[in-house]
């Protein structure tokens, strides 16, 4: 095994992921089903929030993955910028719709949760607001990818957007915090034992988070494979037209 970078070779990447993907898919399905079934059927109600607490098993994992997907895109973009490995640019492209879906799930479940808890579907709470902005970033990123025809130019431009966007996303997070102290829960997943929610909620939540992480990885790998093939198709077709 020469180095990690050899997996940036498209062919090698397809081979390796082709072997890994089925295993990963099964694992993902298992974890997700176990976590969600556990959360939905076998957890008690919260003494204050009643049954709505069950929404947490969707809400928190999707919220975490929405942020992590953007981070992954940032890293992949930087790799493209520095080492010019095409697979990493395509992986960033592949991750964006997954991240957008996660953002949408977090927003929707939050809105549904907010109705009984806060008495409103939507409040301009900092965390909610910054998620809305994150959703806008995803939309812009995806739109830019699909608007540019030359794939290398698209990779370069989206990389610039991703980098600048990350800075501004952080900035808006602080701006939004400063703008409004919100209704939303603070972080309760800290390692600090006293602060944590009870284990009955905590363990299934961890399973769900693991499920979402696995789902994200599986989907990104699958979609990256698709992007690689699509890229080869367009290259071949262009040559055919030339000849």
């Amino acid at each position: 095994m020469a180095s990690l970078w050899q997996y940036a070779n498209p062919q090698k990447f397809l081979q390796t992921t082709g072997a890994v993907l089925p295993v990963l898919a099964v694992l993902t399905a298992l974890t997700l089903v176990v976590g969600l079934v556990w959360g939905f059927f076998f957890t008690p109600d919260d003494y204050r929030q009643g049954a709505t607490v069950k929404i947490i098993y969707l809400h928190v994992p999707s919220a975490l993955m929405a942020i992590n997907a953007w981070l992954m895109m940032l890293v992949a973009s930087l790799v493209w910028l520095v080492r010019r490995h095409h697979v990493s640019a395509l992986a960033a492209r592949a991750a964006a719709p997954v991240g957008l879906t996660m953002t949408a799930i977090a927003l929707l479940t939050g809105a549904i949760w907010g109705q009984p808890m806060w008495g409103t579907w939507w409040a301009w709470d900092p965390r909610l607001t910054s998620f809305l902005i994150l959703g806008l970033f995803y939309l812009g990123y995806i739109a830019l990818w699909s608007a540019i025809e030359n794939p290398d130019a698209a990779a370069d431009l989206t990389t610039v957007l991703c980098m600048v966007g990350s800075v501004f996303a952080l900035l808006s997070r602080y701006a939004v915090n400063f703008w409004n102290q919100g209704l939303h829960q603070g972080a309760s997943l800290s390692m600090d034992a006293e602060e944590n929610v009870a284990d009955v909620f905590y363990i299934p939540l961890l399973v769900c988070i693991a499920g979402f992480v696995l789902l994200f990885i599986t989907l990104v790998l699958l979609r990256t494979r698709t992007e690689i093939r699509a890229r080869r198709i367009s290259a071949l077709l262009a040559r055919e037209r030339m000849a």
Partner: protein
Amino acid sequence: MIPDLGKYAQAVIGAYALSIALLVLLVGWSMWRAARVRRQLNEIEARRVRNG
């Protein structure tokens, strides 16, 4: 079968239904596109082999 969700049944079930629907859509779309692109690529490569 479905646990007693009390007065929040609608909200909880709605949240699960919506989220799972979104996830299924995403997974389905990804798999459908993967299959289609794969088929296209195979066709084109086959055409190239035939034409030399």
